[in-house]
């Protein structure tokens, strides 16, 4: 077997622990079914592209992007854990190169991101199936969003992992990043009607682009604005990926 596949196998095994699965499955379910229906009477219809979505459908589709961010932030932490538990050195003295290690982390993040997206899509499907408009054109957009989003957030977590040494600092930074990304975005509520400084902040957040692209894929409303968002998403992912790779290449023991 190829060394990268062996490392991906190992990465996935160590990531799939009960805590991670609860984080990945239970939390999004609570959001979709509790928050979705609890807020539905307050937020009646959400305009999206050419459509009017009901709030549970809007939220469930947003949770896909949210979950991709979630799971890839967690798997980006593999590097952090490997350094803390001596596995980084152990692997690098074994039959692997640094490129194997970096590429295997990207593949792991991609696989976990895609799996989380599919899982939430499956669970959320009954909630948003009425408005769903898959087509040959939209499915690749969802996959594109899932992969670029995974790389973006995975790279971000990797960058944080290489920059910070203390676990207190690491937890504070990861949680702050997570809170900002999660709630200053279009995952939970639409950007329309949000007061101005906040609205701009929404668009400084990569999760907004990821969520918008995935929603556009699901509800089949690809506008020029969505295409622009795809470009921004890909650009940000590329930049963060280059920075993360540079930092990882220079990481010493």
């Amino acid at each position, binding site marked *: 077997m190829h060394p990268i596949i062996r490392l991906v196998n190992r990465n996935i095994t160590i990531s799939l622990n009960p805590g991670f699965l609860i984080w990945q499955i239970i939390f999004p379910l609570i959001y979709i079914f509790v928050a979705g229906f609890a807020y539905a009477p307050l937020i009646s219809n959400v305009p999206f592209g050419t459509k009017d979505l009901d709030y549970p459908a809007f939220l469930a589709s947003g949770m896909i992007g949210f979950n991709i961010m979630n799971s890839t932030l967690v798997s980006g932490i593999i590097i952090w854990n490997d350094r803390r*538990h001596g*596995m980084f050195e152990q692997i690098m003295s074994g039959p*692997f*190169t640094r490129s194997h290690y970096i590429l295997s982390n990207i593949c792991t993040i991609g696989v976990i991101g895609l799996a989380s997206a599919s899982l939430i899509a499956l669970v959320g499907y009954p909630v948003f199936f009425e408005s769903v408009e898959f087509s040959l054109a939209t499915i690749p957009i969802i996959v594109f969003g899932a992969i670029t989003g995974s790389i973006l957030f995975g790279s971000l977590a990797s960058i944080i992992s290489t920059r910070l040494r203390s676990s207190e600092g690491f937890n504070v930074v990861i949680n702050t990043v997570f809170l900002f990304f999660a709630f200053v975005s279009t995952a939970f509520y639409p950007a329309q009607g949000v007061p101005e400084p906040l609205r701009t902040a929404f668009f400084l957040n990569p999760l907004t682009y990821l969520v918008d692209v995935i929603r556009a894929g699901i509800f089949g409303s690809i506008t020029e604005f969505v295409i622009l968002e795809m470009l921004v998403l890909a650009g940000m992912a590329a930049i963060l990926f280059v920075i993360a790779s540079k930092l990882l290449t220079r990481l010493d*023991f």
Partner: protein
Amino acid sequence: MSCIGVSHLSKSYGSTKAVDDISLSVRPGQVFGFLGPNGAGKSTTIKMLTTLIPPSEGSLSILGIDAVADPLRVRHKIGVVLQQPSYEPTLSVEKSFDKYGMMWDVPKKERKKRTEQLILDFDLEHIRKKRNEDLSIGQRRRVQVAREFMHDMDLLFLDEPTVGLDPGARRKLLDYLKKKVETGLTIFYTTHILSEAEYLCDEIAIIDRGRIVTVDTPDALKSRFGNKKTIRIRLQEKRQDVQGMLSGISDCEIDFEGGTNITIHSEQSEMVLLRVLETLSNNSVDIEDLSAVPTNLEEIFLRMVRDAPDN
């Protein structure tokens, strides 16, 4: 062909020279001991030999391969247990063995077999289902060393593997390593514990402040100093004049510490001891305690390190 060939190897961190111009050669099938106090440069050397960090200067060949030019080929043939713990916190002991074997591309059936054998050889039966993060430091260390034997290798690097082990486990590990050497394995072993190096190693290099002080077999090291005995005398009370009294005695080295402790190294220990006792009793100096022991490696080591240039 030598298994490890190192010539004029150095590693600097800023202005500190962690390793300073060392050269050595390790033959196949040998256990080579790398012995030195904390901060001597043992781990830095091991990290260079295992391709983790590049040397600042010098060349190194591992199993005939230029380790700087072709690190990946070296990594395929060596086993490494670093000083730092390494473990998969959330996996059980047996699962982490299996995954480690998988990472080394060991076939599944073989992995199962080796896992069982290692659990037996390293007494891990009662903790095989425990998660690595729940193990004690000593257990974790044993698991880390055992895990390395999941894959085949020609050369094994061990950086202070017995730290944290109790005496029983320590001895067991050394005996296990001896058995492995009989099957053709070569081992590079660092430690700061001399009795271990003496028990296990065919050749010992003593390193201090980045430099190799001496390289020899344990026996040669002992015979170079072996006729020497160490006599220790403790006086009942402090006497300023003792040093002057004993200065006339030849064929020995005498150290005075704190006014009441006298340490004498000599090859004619009986003669010297008689003369010392005679002198002390003539001057009515009372002795509280007296012992004479053959100089052991521990003392050779301490003296070597102390006498090293620029100290």
